[in-house]
């Protein structure tokens, strides 16, 4: 749809405002992989409650918005191999790199962090090559 980019911009502003609140109020970087991963590997400890509340809100808000939109199709793959491999790669990769699209991308680039910019270049390149390879050459996704 032609108005998709407007909603992209609106959604992006909301995401960035969320990051601004998390930084200015709690003094933390809003990185989804760090927040989830800290809970998974036990490094969160004293910040566990704050991380859980954050994730609960990420999970809950779409439930409130969903009725306004009706049917939202996420077009997710139903190939178990693709989903499991992708999930493992995203989990391992973001923790190894210490960040994902929100931490390195949104929060890193906005402070001109060299690490954030380099990470973003690599995950976009790898993502682009993966889509081109698996979609156009193998026809698998």
């Amino acid at each position: 749809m032609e108005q998709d980019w407007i909603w992209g911009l609106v959604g992006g502003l909301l995401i960035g405002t969320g990051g601004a609140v998390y930084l200015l109020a709690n003094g933390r970087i809003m990185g989804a992989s760090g927040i989830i991963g800290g809970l998974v590997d036990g490094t969160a400890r004293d910040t566990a409650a704050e991380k859980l509340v954050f994730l609960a809100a990420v999970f809950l808000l779409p439930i409130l918005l969903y009725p306004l939109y009706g049917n939202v199709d996420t077009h997710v793959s139903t190939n178990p191999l693709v989903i499991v491999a992708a999930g493992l790669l995203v989990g391992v990769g973001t923790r190894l790199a210490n960040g994902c699209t929100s931490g390195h991308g949104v929060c890193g680039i906005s402070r001109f962090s060299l690490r954030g910019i380099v990470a973003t270049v690599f995950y976009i390149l790898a993502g682009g090559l993966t889509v081109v390879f698996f979609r156009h050459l193998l026809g698998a996704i």
Partner: protein
Amino acid sequence: MRLLYAFIAGGLFGAGLFVSGMTDTSKVQGWLDVFGDWDPTLAFVMGGAIIPMAIAWRLVPGRKPLVGGAFPEPQEPRISRNLVLGSTLFGAGWGLAGLCPGPAIASLSYGGVWHWVFAAAMLAGMALAPLLRVRLDRLVPAE
């Protein structure tokens, strides 16, 4: 107060991911697929998100977080092997499924069972990461 602010931040993040269409895997893959019917939406989401965040970073120097404590220190601009390798692995998974950690959580309520399978695999990957980190360090000592 810390928990209330975390809820507000998470709510804005979740709402933004939903409204922007970033939980739709076809829009993410459509942006990465430069040889297909290219979808520019993700660039607008990134651009839109960076604006308030850049303003927030400009407010940091000389201040303290509302709840007290200190802001995160500026990072050392060191490009490590783990940063490059991890980002590459992450990008491959991101391209395969069209999901990254934030949207993976935001889409759980309405995306169906495969989103839960993805989330479970992602959590497993995150649990394995510290082990892999140790192995890698043993194999090729970090500088």
